[in-house]
């Protein structure tokens, strides 16, 4: 059976796309996800994320930083949710700042959750049990 786009994995390790312009944060989030046995692709921009999403059909969740140059995580979220091919993929936003307007804007746009950095393994476990198996 072909893997369904987004949501539940139908076989093999779930594939998470992590998007963050910070090399430190990419390393941390990738390791947190891998330690929970997820396959991870980490990219440094929204542009690269969209390029990858156009090529790979098996991304089960996107976790993206909010504040990135050129394309913010919010803008990436909008592009994903506007796409008939991508909109089923759960998107989680991360930010180092607790800004209520920012959080509600992302949730209204279709983000599944909003995490405050630094991300903890317990955050990832909670998310992935909701969206990935």
């Amino acid at each position, binding site marked *: 059976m072909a893997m369904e786009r987004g949501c539940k994995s139908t076989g093999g390790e779930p594939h998470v796309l992590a998007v963050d312009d*910070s090399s430190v*944060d990419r390393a941390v989030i990738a390791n947190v996800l891998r330690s929970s046995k997820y396959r991870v692709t980490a990219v440094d921009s929204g542009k690269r994320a969209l390029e990858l999403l156009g090529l790979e059909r098996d991304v089960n969740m996107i976790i993206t930083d909010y504040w990135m140059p050129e394309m913010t995580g919010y803008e990436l979220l909008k592009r994903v949710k506007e796409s008939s091919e991508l909109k089923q993929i759960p998107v989680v936003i991360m930010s180092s700042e607790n800004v209520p307007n920012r959080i509600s804007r992302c949730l209204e746009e279709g983000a599944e959750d909003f995490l405050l950095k630094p991300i903890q393994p317990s955050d990832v476990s909670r998310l992935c049990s909701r969206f990935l198996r």
Partner: protein
Amino acid sequence: MAPTALQEKLNGLVNSMFAEGLLDEQFQQLQMLQDGSNPGFVAEVVTLFCEDSERILAELTKLMDQAVVDYSKVDAYVHQLKGSSSSVGAQNVKLACIQFRQFCEDNNKEGCMRALNVVKHEYYHLRSKFETMLHLENRIQAYETKQQS
């Protein structure tokens, strides 16, 4: 030096870094993520943090040297450094960045200059400790590799 003595020295160093406020519980989280499948994780993150920090500090120095300071650019860089220091558990660097951002918000050049010096001081102090930490880890790892062969 025997490996147990090296390990004790390493533990003592890391404990003192926590006690001094150089590191916070986020660094403990990183240590807990390091395991047999990824034994170099902490070293990788620390190295990335140092590379990133030095790039940012160089940019901040250039920006603050300008006759007319672009505070939004300064703030953007300080925000980045605050983020990565938070992710690695570099507590004092993070706190210094928070203070720096306040001066940016006030467009206070003198305050920003002082804050930049504080951030540099805290970063270089931490970097020195990280270098010792990684050196000790490498020595322990080299001994363990030799024992296995």
